[in-house]
């Protein structure tokens, strides 16, 4: 039967045994953080799109609308979609650093 003194020694040994993490742990952590940021932006953009879509649906279902209103809403919808696509592309390509790398490659 183990004495408390033996347990104390065993605990110290156990908790001080070297434990080496994966050599890519830091890199994978940074990528996880970036991935979460991307997902957050994507989720936000999807929510915005749904809001625009529901607002438009509500407007059209409420009754007949004048042509200028319809055209304005459609243009607004297209504008929102273009901004969302541009933001998504900007984030996916690495933001400012990605743009600078692209510009540098054009000037070579």
């Amino acid at each position, binding site marked *: 039967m183990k004495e*408390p003194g033996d347990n104390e020694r065993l605990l110290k040994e156990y908790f001080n045994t070297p434990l*080496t*993490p994966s050599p890519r742990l830091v890199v994978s952590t940074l990528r996880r953080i970036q991935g979460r940021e991307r997902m957050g932006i994507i989720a936000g953009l999807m929510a915005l799109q749904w809001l625009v879509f529901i607002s438009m649906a509500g407007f059209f279902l409420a009754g007949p609308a004048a042509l200028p209103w319809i055209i304005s809403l459609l243009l607004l919808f297209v504008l929102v979609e273009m901004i969302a696509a541009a933001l998504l592309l900007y984030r996916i390509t690495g933001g400012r650093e990605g743009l600078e790398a692209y510009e540098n490659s054009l000037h070579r």
Partner: protein
Amino acid sequence: MMTDQQLVEGCKSGQPQHLELLIARYRDDLYRFCRHLTLNRQDAEDLFQEVWVRVIRKLEKYNAERPFKPWLFQVAFNLYRDHYRKWKSVYALWNWLSSDAELVQLRDPEPSAEENLLRSEEHRQLEECLRGLPARYLAPLVLYYYEEFSYEGIAEVLGVPIGTVKSRLNQGKKLLHSLMKEMN
């Protein structure tokens, strides 16, 4: 060498190289803490990464007057205790949706050869007994045997009075001793 507070300020102002330095600085210590809490290599790496995701989110609330390490460990412990064990499968799905395929290759469910060599049968039995301990007893034991955390440091990480730390350490050791007696 930059201090923790300088690196944190750099992270807050969006400088990615400071974040990388900060993660690298605490890589070994935090990984060991996560490893001893989860008792599993793969879960430890998952928890390690989730801790930093949360740290980035909470960085604005971090008080630069406090040392960074106890705060970091406090975030890790709170995440483990309150969320990680319950939401492990949800985190796995979220990461699968947001991660590259390359990351999947990082996962190694088997202990490394080095870990196998260093772990004796006694250590494996002890680990089995540690799995039976509630988190409120396991965490003080882990922090105490690091030999770096004083009772005050442990109290700061766990957010409890020093008396509670001592009481939980004693209770934890007694419970562990009885579990080890049963196993033997």
